[in-house]
């Protein structure tokens, strides 16, 4: 009458399998689709703010970040996520137009006070620019700027020369003798 009950527990005990996972030592295998802490690819972010607009809990704020892409827009801002409010729903990931915001498998985000678990772009960014790269980029930018200036100066000079030549050719027809005389005068004199 109650023997099935007793048999079931005895069978489970004799099989010896314990299903407890000893947690800090062993962490479980999470699937690829797992929604954990965000990862921001800073080279693709365009600072549009779609993630901040769609978040149901207003967790995302846009803040400036020095190691973003300095060439594009000096005033560009990047998302900062408050994990005290985030419910890991994934709407921000779906809305991002450049697919730069994704979610990783990290889920351990405890902190000692509320400010600790506000993760700015420095905490969630991958692909940020290192110092060397920043210097190189600045160098390139400067060179490009100089190049542009030089080209502009050359173009302006070329234009001026051309205008001067055209004018000289014009006047040369009219009083080329005068000019030539002046010139020769200038030369000899």
């Amino acid at each position, binding site marked *: *009458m109650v023997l*099935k*009950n007793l048999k079931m527990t005895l069978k489970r005990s004799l099989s010896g399998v314990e*299903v407890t996972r000893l947690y800090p030592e062993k962490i479980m295998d999470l699937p690829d689709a797992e929604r954990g802490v965000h990862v921001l690819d800073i080279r693709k972010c365009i600072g549009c703010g779609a993630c901040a607009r769609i978040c*149901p809990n207003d967790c995302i704020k846009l803040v400036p970040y020095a190691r973003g892409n300095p060439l594009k827009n000096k005033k560009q801002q990047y998302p900062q996520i408050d994990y005290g409010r985030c419910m*890991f*729903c994934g*709407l921000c990931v779906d809305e991002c137009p450049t697919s730069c915001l994704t979610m990783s498998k990290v889920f351990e985000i405890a902190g000692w006070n509320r400010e600790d678990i506000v993760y700015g772009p420095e905490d969630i960014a991958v692909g940020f620019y290192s110092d060397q790269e920043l210097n190189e980029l600045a160098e390139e930018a400067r060179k490009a700027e100089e190049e542009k200036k030089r080209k502009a100066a050359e173009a302006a000079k070329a234009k001026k020369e051309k205008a001067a030549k055209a004018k000289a050719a014009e006047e040369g027809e009219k009083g080329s003798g005068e000019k030539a005389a002046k010139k020769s005068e200038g030369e000899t004199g």
Partner: protein
Amino acid sequence: MTTANDVLSALQSAFPGAVEEAKVSPERQLWATIKPDKIVDVCKYLRDDHNFDHYSGAAGVDRIKEGLFEVTELLASHGAHQVVALLKMKTPRDNPSVKSLTGLYWNANWYEREIWEMLGINFEGHPELYPLLLSDELVGAWPWRKDYKGYPDYNTADRAIEIVNPEGYADYSFAPTKAEIEAGTVPFERPKYPTFREREEMEIKGESEMILHMGPQHAVVPGPFLLDILVDGERVKKAFLDVGYIHKGIEKIMENRTYMQGIPITDRLCYMAALTNNEAYCGAVERLLRIEAPERAQYIRMILQELSRIQSHLLGTGEFLTLIASAVFSPFLYMIIDREDVLSCIESVTGARINHSFVRFGGVRNDLPDGFKDMTLDTLKMIRKKTEEYKELLLSDSIYRKRMEGVGVLSPSEARRLGVSGPPLRASDTPYDMRREDPYLLYKDMDFDVITRKEGDSKARVEVRLDEIFESCYIIEQCLDQIPSGPIMAEGVPKKIKPEPGEAYYRVEDHRGEMGFFVVSDGSEKPVKVKARGPVYAYFQALPPLLEGVYIADVVAIAGSMDACTSEVDR
């Protein structure tokens, strides 16, 4: 089979002039605006002559721009036909009052109480118009009106006045400040009614009777609700039930969020059944947008919802077993271990274990990963074997049968009158399943049985749930065979969701019964009203009559066999 058009024409001929506007869309739903003074006669006619014997719910909408309140009554039938009648009544905003349907349908009681306390619409003829979800300080403030100015700030502790009530316990009251009264955030005209405690104590008749709280803070009730039982020795004389301890205001929150932002919030209605909640909401909005999800997305939705049903039934049965045994009862733990495999299958698709936010308007969020079919088929094989073992166990255990047979019997007519749905209704010999009554997704192409039992006692309810696990396994296997490849998101879904003005109602078979979402839109990007009609609301309403005359130990057996989820009641 009666169709909606037949009902409409019969109604128009029987009550000329009572029907102001009418529409049939989609094919089984009849939308009609009825004159408020004729509503009781219309409903009586529908109930007696056209078998509309299931009162599904009522929703109140605040149309502040037009100065009206609308109350929509939802009527359906327990199997005679598949038509759903949604009857709307308009009443002016200054003095709103409609007739109550409690004379015709017993379970209209709580739905009308909720509309009264939230919107201030008076229901004439209602026997007990007392607050249900709100605490006593808020009654009279009518929170769901569009011009509600907010909850007054009761945070200041030094404003608290201590009152010692006659039994010696201290109570605190907060007097409103002058600034609050001038700002108009404090209702200083409150309706008068006896409090819950007074209503209980009116029922004590003898010296040896006492009120025992299986109240909000109890060791093992599933979610906080107040259940007071009036006992005489070990027998229960009467039971009182009050809900509203975790009222989060989800419906009002969803009015202040866009349609897309509302999807994660519907997850949290009943966290065990997140996928069917998502489905109900997205289905209603899809009807408003007039788009349909592609086939692959529909198959994915079906697979995941049936997987979710398996894990919810395992947990529900396991939790119920801890109520009649202790928490160390081993089969409960074995069911939890099996459930982990099912959750891993769901997690590999959606990325989360309970709050999925997976269904989107016109499709789903992710596609099935590689290897999903093999993993799921292995899991289903294991679940079938284990569930067979659990069924045998519960059939052969004589202590369990002594506790459960003949306890909490719901006869079929009683179950229909009380308005329950889902496994308790099916355990009382009524094959009422939304997947057959109102086929959504692709259930009309699937081959499965609707499980019923004849006895209607607690043991039958648990057996129905365990048998439904087998049916769900069969449905998933069919879906995995038939699933086509293709897109998972419909084309032409707009980036900014702004449906045309209108209303939509969508029903699904939730794990606990019939769940419906009623969405009203007015062309802007936020809905005017979202009403979630949950199945457990009806269970709780039906519980006090069931508990009269049983032993104290049976109270938990009956309440547990209903498999309640309080979060859905309180929203």
